[in-house]
């Protein structure tokens, strides 16, 4: 890259998890037979009128506050007009010049450096239906089927300033945004299910230049991985283009996940003129300051604040605190566990090492795992009380992860209780000393290391259940007696 820098802004659509749609009473529930979650209003039948779902407004304000926006005192809806069969009214009810929230920011951490990313605006709008083409595209299909279950599902669109400079930053921004929205519980924010969608505006310019280059908009980014890959690809494509003396064309491009390339979708000239104008069927919104204050007070602790608190008050390393707070579910798991068993570092270590290892291996979300905070806390107490060793605990943990069983039950069932009885261990120590004269000789000759081997043998004999502290102590006593 060297002499060029990328300028990236993200447009993120977040589906709000209200029970009903934005302008009618239909359920927003995912799935369902096609066209079963519809009514005359969301089907846009002649004569119907929209009525704003107040929960949508509430969630949008919460989201706006969580990303440090100022909430408009006066806001309104506008119509975005274009023809497409997934749009029942041939316009999308959205917000144009007076969005509900503006001028926000959030801080991202890339390679240990904190960077503040501006947020231009957050606005409310409705989702469109879904088309299934009997062919590749709408123009090459013989016919298409339309499902309007999604039509009218509430969304917020969050537009960032062009403050991002790399695919890595874009990914960090998106992850932080996802975490925040998750914390305030207004959306499931799942990219795979489409409740979090992202388009990227990308341009390049010579390092040091203040002017913006011609940008392209890249769509169809369906996972965090594709966001990162597509941006990396597009930046390089633009650089290559410029290096070859070509100009960048302002256009919309689509990311082809399989081929790993972006492809031109339509040029600026083909772009729609949406003919925005104020939605006459909805009255303008006057947002009470009291209500905004109330919603602000009701916001939970957000990831950044929580991370700072875990570092300052729980003494967690910054990296660990960052990982634990990056997802609401993980943070809640941590919170609940330390609430019962307040060994912060211990809990954090088990989450960071064992839990994440298993989750990654199974490609699972924590909500899908069977292990409970109560189980983990109980297991940690058992370690503390020397009922099981740390080593055995790993086995117990894995079992809890897979089955959700109580750790005591697991230990009992599998006979994993730690042996701390000195008499029992002593006889094994004597046996091992008798069977390994060479190592004993080495120890006597000053080779401290050989003690490790002997401990290993004892642990082997006890299937790892011997209390390591007791083993060490008894072994040293015996050797010194010899």
């Amino acid at each position, binding site marked *: 890259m060297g002499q060029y820098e990328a300028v990236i802004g993200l447009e993120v659509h977040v589906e709000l998890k209200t029970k009903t749609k934005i302008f009618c009473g239909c359920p927003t529930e995912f799935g369902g037979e096609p066209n079963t979650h519809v009514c005359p209003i969301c089907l846009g*039948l*002649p*004569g119907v*009128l929209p009525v704003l779902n107040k929960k949508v407004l509430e969630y949008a304000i919460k989201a706006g506050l969580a990303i440090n926006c100022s909430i408009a005192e006066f806001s309104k809806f506008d*119509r975005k007009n274009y023809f497409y069969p997934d749009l*029942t009214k041939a316009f999308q009810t959205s917000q144009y010049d007076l969005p509900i929230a503006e001028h926000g920011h959030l801080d991202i951490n890339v390679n240990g450096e904190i960077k503040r990313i501006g947020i231009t605006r957050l606005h409310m709008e409705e989702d469109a239906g879904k088309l299934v083409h009997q062919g590749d595209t709408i123009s090459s299909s013989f016919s298409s089927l339309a499902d309007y279950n999604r039509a009218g599902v509430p969304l917020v669109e969050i537009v960032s300033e062009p403050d991002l400079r790399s695919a890595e930053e874009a990914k960090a921004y998106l992850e932080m945004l996802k975490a925040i929205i998750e914390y305030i519980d207004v959306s499931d924010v799942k990219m795979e299910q489409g409740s979090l969608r992202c388009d990227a505006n990308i341009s390049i310019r010579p390092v040091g230049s203040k002017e913006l280059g011609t940008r392209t908009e890249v769509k169809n980014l369906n996972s965090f991985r594709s966001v990162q890959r597509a941006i990396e690809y597009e930046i390089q494509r633009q650089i290559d283009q410029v290096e070859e003396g070509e100009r960048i064309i302002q256009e919309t491009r689509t990311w082809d996940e399989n081929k790993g390339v972006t492809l031109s979708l339509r040029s600026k000239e083909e772009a729609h003129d949406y003919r925005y*104008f104020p939605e006459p069927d909805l009255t303008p919104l006057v947002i009470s300051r009291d209500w905004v204050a109330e919603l602000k007070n009701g916001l939970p602790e957000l990831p950044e604040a929580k991370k700072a608190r875990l570092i300052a008050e729980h003494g967690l390393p910054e990296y660990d605190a960052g990982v634990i707070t990056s997802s609401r579910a993980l943070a809640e798991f941590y919170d609940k566990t330390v609430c019962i068993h307040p060994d912060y570092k211990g809990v954090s270590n088990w989450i960071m090492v064992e839990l994440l290892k298993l989750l990654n291996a199974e490609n699972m979300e924590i909500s899908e795992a069977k292990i409970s905070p109560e189980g983990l806390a109980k297991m940690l107490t058992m370690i503390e009380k020397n009922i099981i060793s740390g080593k055995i605990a790993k086995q117990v943990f894995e079992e809890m992860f897979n089955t959700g069983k109580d750790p005591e039950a697991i230990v009992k069932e599998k006979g994993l209780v730690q042996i701390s009885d000195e008499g029992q261990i002593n006889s094994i120590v004597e046996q091992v000393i008798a069977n390994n004269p060479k190592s004993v000789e080495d120890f006597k000759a000053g080779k401290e290391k050989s003690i490790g081997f002997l401990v290993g043998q004892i642990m082997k004999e006890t299937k790892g259940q011997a209390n390591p502290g007791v083993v060490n102590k008894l072994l040293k006593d015996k050797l010194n007696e010899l």
Partner: protein
Amino acid sequence: MELSTIHGLRDLLANREISAEELTNQALEKIEKIDDKIKAFVTVTKDEAIQVAREIDQKRSKGESLGPLAGIPMALKDNMCTEDIKTTCSSKILYNFIPPYSAKVYEKLLGAGSILLGKTNMDEFAMGSSTENSGFFPTCNPWDLNCVPGGSSGGSAAAVASGEAVFALGSDTGGSIRQPASFCGVVGLKPTYGAVSRYGLIAYASSLDQIGPFTRDVTDCALVMNAITGHDSFDSTSALVDYPDYTRFLVNDIKDMRIGIPREYFGEGIEPEVEAKIREAINKLEELGAVVEECSLPHTQYALPAYYIIAPAECSSNLARYDGVRYGLRVEDADDIVSMFSRTRDQGFGIEVKRRIMLGTYALSSGYYDAYYLKALKVRNLVKQDFDKAFEKFDCLITPTAPSVAFEFGSKADTIAMYKQDVCTIPINLAGIPALSLPYGLVNNMPVGLQFVGKAFGEGNLLRVAYTLEQNSDQTRLEPSLEGVK
């Protein structure tokens, strides 16, 4: 036979001198007899009407409580959705559209016990002033079959004037209730914007559309207003106010009532004989004790051009949904989606609808929005301020409803000449205020309409002054001879 009124029939029905079924059958027979000439109806709901009438009669015989309009046969303009009954907007694009739901006003009228005779003809999507723009056929004026009934609610006006229906509902975006009421010699009221739910009214221009009644006298107008007004949580623009019993304004007294005569509504563009009748009515009101004074609404001349930006802009968006995808007309042999859209709309819409869609699309296009749409909104505000100022001083204003009496078919082929039909009515829609058209005598044997304009939610004053004039004049209750249809 003198044409019947709601209040007259109500007594006959209550005294069981006539049953709802008999009354409904009489109306249906009349429609059968004369509507091939008048052509007020697009759809006649004969079977449904008789069934509802029988139910009302049964309820009455059992002594069950009945709504205030029980047994009264009526008609609805064909832009109000009626569940399981075809609703076309007199457009080919909706020629087969059967709504799965009903407009709030229809539900309210059914609740009040009235009986739907059918759906009336209109200018396609309520765009026009003569009903000549119907996608199916024109409606004739019951006073003279060679003349238009006005529009866009021409079918509803003609149905009431000819005695086919006792009352009807129309919609008024720029004069579409008042001008046909004037042309057909019946009472027509455009209520305050927000007083009647628009839920289920197929939109032309959402910020201007309002449903209102056509009746044979002022008392009936108040009775229908009682049935159709009220807040509706399904219409975000519905007003949350206390709605009065409108019959309490039926008072024969206008002593000291302050009436303004806006000079911009007289003179040039108004036929002198029409103006003379209006002046005659004004003199009569003065005689009856009203305090009459000339006044000015200085921005009146800008209302028409502003309307022809705002209404088409909204219509271009409101009518975009008729794309052949989900209901209504769809051309079957399109090559691709774009040709399906454009060919369906080309075949489905008439020329006036296309003209307004084009106008509105242009006015909202990027680069033109500020110069047209935004400017029109500013004009709208000025027009509204004119009225606000006038109502600081006056209880109501009086103007002609239309510049002329009903004209012959084809005589306003020039688009601008047709648009000027609504010069006296459009400012009222821009301001969102109520106005009532009351018949006042004949010119060349055709009815003249007198327009009373009130402040927002000031329908009471309009009913009071119209009622008083009606009680003290023989010029307001007009009945066509119907010679041409006999």
